[in-house]
């Protein structure tokens, strides 16, 4: 149920009523994918924009869906693509073999997430198994004659080598343009292969919004999710992204445990059995509502699993919000209020103590929007002002409610929406001169080289829930204490921009200049 319509019935919603309610919600767009397993792009389905720069107030006022001005830039830099999320995430499902139907360059990114795999597994006391992936290594010959045969061979061989439960097949720009019929290959080899083969259609050029890749990844998993034989009462499925590790999960389990709700995490670092049985739960939610948007609706539509999608539970207010929404799914509103009161009484004084050290500072928040808004809420509780916040894409669907909440609680702030676009970041660093940047891997290195100390929020950072808030607030105080490294290196860094760039409007390249594509198709 949408978070901003929380004043509904106090009873747990029956799944049928729930499905109906969602069917009527035209604003979520059509769920039915175009082809068998091709999810609609976020742009098509939610009117997601990937290019915006301006104040939060303005964003809320109007710049909205189907606004082609906010779909492109006449200058752009490289960022994420649709193929990334299926590739990286499916590699983190236990016992899966990933087959990248692509040249060898696409899956090279998996080499870069070995560290995350290690962190993820160690924190869950799982053995550190290597990530298994095979590239079909598309060559010049293959792009002329087709790569389907090689793909079939790779699948059969993957099954033989590792006897996995699951094989995910990831498509690429090259396989998409040459028109290899991946579905047909999968159907043809499935009888010879014990593993369930799940193709994920995610050509890198499909969408400018990286979350379309999340949709492709999660929706494809529905192929192996079975009809529930029995229901697990008081059990919630929580979609958790790669960037939120076990200690954060433990905090959520602790809180929901107090009101008798059990948690089934989904889908990373999970055994195949847990994926198959995902429909047995009696409710579903998410730690990243940007990631799970399509999947939760599809799961509900198919198996009647009621869900809620509150913003990320960071800081007291958003954790309260998240817990209240989740408890309502199970009719435990009264019980959760007791937990919230207890926790707040315990945590608030600790945060207030930290607040004395950091109050009045200005920061740059650098994440995808679902996390940015959560972190901003915690910052407000610490008396820290947000100068700029970022998102890789924006849709009212998950952005509006938290931004409205934040804008009521704080001064106006700048919002940069872009599938990265580092030239805008560096311009904003120079103009806004934040005291620190709070960000993920994407932003942090660039901030350091521009002389801005950082508080990193990486997969092993503890920041979710009440105890997470205290832990993360302490991280922030440390970053403010010793900025030496950033100051030292920035003096010696020459960024690749003309000096004149820093005095210009950071968002001047946003918008369609009319020559962005041939054939005049600029929507």
């Amino acid at each position, binding site marked *: 149920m949408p978070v901003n319509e929380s004043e509904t019935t106090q009873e747990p919603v029956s799944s049928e009523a729930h499905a109906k309610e969602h069917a009527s919600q035209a604003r979520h767009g059509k769920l039915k994918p175009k082809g068998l397993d091709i999810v609609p792009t976020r742009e098509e389905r939610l009117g997601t924009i990937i290019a915006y720069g301006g104040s939060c107030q303005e964003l809320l006022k109007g710049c909205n869906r189907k606004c082609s001005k906010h779909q492109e830039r006449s200058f752009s830099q490289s960022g994420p*693509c649709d193929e990334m999320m299926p590739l990286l995430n499916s590699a983190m499902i236990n016992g899966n073999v990933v087959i990248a139907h692509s*040249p060898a360059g696409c899956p090279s*990114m998996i080499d870069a997430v070995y560290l995350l795999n290690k962190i993820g597994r160690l924190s869950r006391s799982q053995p*550190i198994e290597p990530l298994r992936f095979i590239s079909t290594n598309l060559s010049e010959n293959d792009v002329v004659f087709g790569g389907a045969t090689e793909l079939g061979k790779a699948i059969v061989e993957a099954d033989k080598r590792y006897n996995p439960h699951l094989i995910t097949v990831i498509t690429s*720009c*090259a396989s998409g343009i040459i028109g290899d019929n991946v579905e047909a290959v999968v159907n043809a080899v499935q009888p010879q292969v014990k593993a369930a083969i799940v193709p994920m259609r995610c050509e890198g050029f499909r969408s400018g919004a990286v979350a379309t890749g999340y949709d492709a990844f999660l929706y494809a998993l529905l192929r192996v999710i079975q009809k529930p034989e029995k229901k697990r009462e008081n059990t919630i499925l929580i979609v958790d992204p790669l960037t939120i590790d076990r200690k954060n999960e433990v905090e959520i389990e602790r809180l929901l445990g107090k009101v008798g709700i059990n948690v089934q995490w989904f889908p990373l670092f999970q055994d195949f059995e847990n994926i198959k049985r995902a429909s047995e739960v009696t409710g579903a939610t998410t730690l990243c509502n940007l990631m799970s948007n399509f999947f939760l609706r599809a799961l509900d539509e198919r198996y009647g699993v009621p869900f809620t999608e509150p913003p990320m539970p960071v800081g007291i207010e958003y954790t309260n919000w998240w817990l209240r929404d989740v408890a309502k799914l199970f009719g435990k509103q009264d019980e959760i209020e007791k937990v919230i009161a207890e926790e707040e009484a315990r945590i608030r004084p600790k945060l207030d103590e930290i607040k004395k050290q950091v109050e009045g500072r200005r920061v740059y928040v650098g994440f995808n929007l679902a996390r940015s808004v959560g972190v901003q809420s915690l910052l407000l509780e610490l008396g820290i002002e947000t100068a700029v916040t970022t998102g890789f894409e924006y849709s009212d669907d998950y952005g509006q409610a938290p931004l409205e909440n934040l804008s009521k609680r704080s001064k106006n702030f700048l919002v940069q929406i872009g599938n990265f676009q580092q030239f805008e970041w560096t311009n904003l660093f120079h103009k806004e001169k934040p005291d620190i940047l709070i960000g993920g891997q994407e932003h942090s290195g660039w901030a350091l080289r521009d002389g801005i100390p950082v508080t990193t929020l990486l997969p092993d950072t503890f920041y979710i829930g009440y105890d997470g808030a205290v832990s993360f607030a302490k991280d922030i105080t440390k970053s403010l204490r010793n900025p030496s490294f950033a100051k030292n290196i920035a003096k010696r860094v020459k960024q690749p921009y003309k000096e004149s760039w820093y005095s210009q409007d950071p968002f001047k390249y946003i918008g369609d200049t009319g020559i962005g594509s*041939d054939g005049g198709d600029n929507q």
Partner: protein
Amino acid sequence: MSFTEEPRSTCALGGALSLISSIQRAVPIVHAGPGCGFTLTFGQNIANGYQYIGYASGFAAPSTNTLEKHVVFGGENRLREQIRTTLEIMDADIFFVVSGCTAGLIGDDVRSIVEEFRRSEKPVIFSETSGFKGNTYRGYDLALRSLVDQLVLPAEKKTKNLVNLFGVVPSQNAFWQGDINEIVRLLNRIGVQVNLSGNRDNIEKIRRAAEAELNIVLSANTGLSTAELFKDKYQVQYLKYPLPIGTETSGFLRKVAEALGLDKERVEKVIQEEEEEFWKYLIQFSEAYVFLLVNKEFDVISDSNYAIAISKFLSNDLGLFPKLIAVTDSPDESLRCEIEGRIKELNYNLSPKVIFEEDNYKIWEEIAKDAPNLVFGSSLDRQSAKKEKALLFPVSYPLFDQTVLSKGYSGYRGAVRLVEDLGTELLTSI
């Protein structure tokens, strides 16, 4: 090509971006899908000793970010617009357009779009490097050849004892800076000046590269087409000598001296001094050798460069036993015989098995058969080595379980470093 488990390199576009990241004030303009520039740099930085390299790499790399409509209607206008805006905002000496799979498959005419910018203040050059054209080594070659073809000026005269080096691919050899620096140090010692080294070259050096008397290709597989182009177009001869480690370096210096007609006595004096220092340290290592290395057998999984260099160094200098050498850079069929020959230039008739294989599973099937004590491979091999009860010493791509900055294993000093690191790995693994 056949499918490959855990490929040991990226794609042609990755190789091109790797070359560009080694050049001072060079900015790539990626004409490809939205993720290529980021994925490849992310992979090649983190999975390559966590090195942030390049002037405008990763998220800073300008990119047309080809979307579906460009695939349907063509991406040429978008490329034109992107080059124009890049010239407007970015400060660079070289703008290097490199194209990926989408551009190659939809048939965008990159050449004629780039041609329109011929008169721009700073040079705009291009190379067609669609990922499907081959691996990183192939892409490095394609882009280097384009760079030389489009930027190097004809030289009126040659400069005595001036050389260019190429063949060390930054993203494939995590130790590229250290390795190149040691070679440059030694060449300087014997009186040779290095113009292009492959480590942070600039536009001036590139323009005057044809003044070199000799090109040295530090690889048996990579950089050869560029050396040929230099020979045909600019009359610069070349010497092919794969990156040396240990006393092999003496052979390298003698070959260079011969090719340039240097004073033999001076060169021999330098070799003697360097070898003396090298052996002084190895003598100090002899007690550790007793504990750690006597009679050890080793396998290598690496590109042809390190495959040759490590095999020779460990066999000829350290007295170890080579068993299986897996060469992973897919050299052209015509080069394989020569590469195998170089690997087998070993004392005492030592003769390892040499395979050309990139598929990780097949490589480890072979390794499991001969149960070596040591495996010189990549971070990918750590778990497998553990299973086979061998020690993994990481030297080849991908290298994501160590950080690498200045160190290298080439030459004499690099060899000493390698022995130090090997000893440490062996001691900490006990």
